[in-house]
């Protein structure tokens, strides 16, 4: 039974898991949907009330009947590397690939259906509320007046993108940024803005949940650091204990979201209290494992290696 990993070739974090699977003698196929149909073959047959399908990539072949699990890591857009790529070819290839994979009985980390919902940051905030996390007050709005009112109410707020920076070249960054009520909010009418009460923090927390196993890491923040992803503070990630209250909320959150893998970000305030910021359903863990030594890739490999559903 084979583990299928959907990711790009340059994803060295996936390498960490592939190595673990090799060590455990678990068959694995690594495939980038962007390579369909040029360097990867796909065929599925639906006839006589039965279904069979196979994929071939990198000299490896897997049948849908022999599929143990699917890990959706950092896949490219289907058919993006085709000789004549197009939106139509991508849509057709997505239908063929995911229609076939959904027809198999493999376990998913994470199923794209759940992943799509879990990416929605406003939904994350609501789910975090419902599962007992402390969430900073937040507004998502296209109304400049309401954005200004929110900033006036809380004094210092941060603005953050819900979907990340715009794609394209050259690559751009869109860090979470501290703003005040005197900002010019007229641009809110040109696109939804997400504003959140600023939480002065003494540390960033990254908590990775793999099939219910929790790995928390803590990195001290500089006094004026707003976005822990940017700026070299000289501090490193260190393993951290998970408070019981957080542990229960994490388990409730991933159950409600239907996620096998999730990476939570928290701000630790001056009293040591953890504030929920977001939950990345495919968040990076490579840097955490490399700095803390926490066996996250091993946990991922073990989850993927469990038998498929019957």
């Amino acid at each position, binding site marked *: 039974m084979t583990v299928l990993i959907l990711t*790009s*070739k*340059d*994803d*060295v*974090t996936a*390498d*960490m898991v*592939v*190595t673990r699977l090799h060590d455990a003698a678990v068959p*694995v*196929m*690594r495939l980038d949907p962007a390579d369909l149909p040029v360097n990867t073959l796909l065929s599925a047959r639906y006839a006589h009330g039965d279904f069979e399908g196979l994929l071939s990539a*990198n*000299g*490896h072949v897997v049948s849908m009947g022999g599929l143990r699990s699917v890990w959706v890591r*950092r*896949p*490219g*857009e289907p058919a*993006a590397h085709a000789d004549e790529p197009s939106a139509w070819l991508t849509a057709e290839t997505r239908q063929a690939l995911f229609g076939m994979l959904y027809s198999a009985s493999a376990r998913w980390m994470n199923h794209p259906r759940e992943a799509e919902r879990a*990416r929605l940051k406003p939904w994350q905030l609501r789910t975090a509320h419902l599962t007992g996390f402390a969430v900073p007050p937040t507004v998502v709005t296209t109304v400049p007046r309401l*954005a200004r009112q929110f900033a006036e109410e809380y004094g210092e707020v941060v*603005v*953050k*993108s819900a*979907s*990340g*920076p*715009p*794609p394209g070249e*050259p*690559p*751009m*960054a*869109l*860090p979470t*940024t501290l703003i005040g009520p005197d900002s010019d*909010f*007229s*641009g*809110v*009418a*040109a*696109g939804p*803005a*997400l504003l959140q009460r600023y939480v002065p923090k003494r540390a960033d927390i*990254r908590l990775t949940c793999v099939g219910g196993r929790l790995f928390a890491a803590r990195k001290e923040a500089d006094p004026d650091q707003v976005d822990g*992803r*940017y700026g070299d503070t000289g501090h490193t990630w260190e393993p951290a204990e998970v408070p019981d209250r957080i542990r229960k909320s994490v388990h409730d959150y991933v159950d409600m979201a239907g996620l096998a893998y999730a*990476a939570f970000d928290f701000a630790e305030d001056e009293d040591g209290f953890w504030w929920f910021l977001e939950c*990345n*359903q*495919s*968040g*990076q863990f*490579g*840097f955490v494992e*490399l*700095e803390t030594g926490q066996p996250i890739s091993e946990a991922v490999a073990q989850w993927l290696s469990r038998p498929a559903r019957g």
Partner: protein
Amino acid sequence: MRPFTLNYIRPASHPTAVPPYRFDDSLQLNVLPDGRPAVSDPELLLAVGTTASTAGSKTHFDD
């Protein structure tokens, strides 16, 4: 009119150096010029930043 959030955009500071490894189809791993898997050199991976939370691909925004 420019969307409000884009007022805070800036050039990314990703390293422009090409990572010193390449994908090996048979191993299904990235390997260094001497043939060792790239993951055997954690110091190098940290240095090139390809496992960092800002290293998402062009098609992914999950950090």
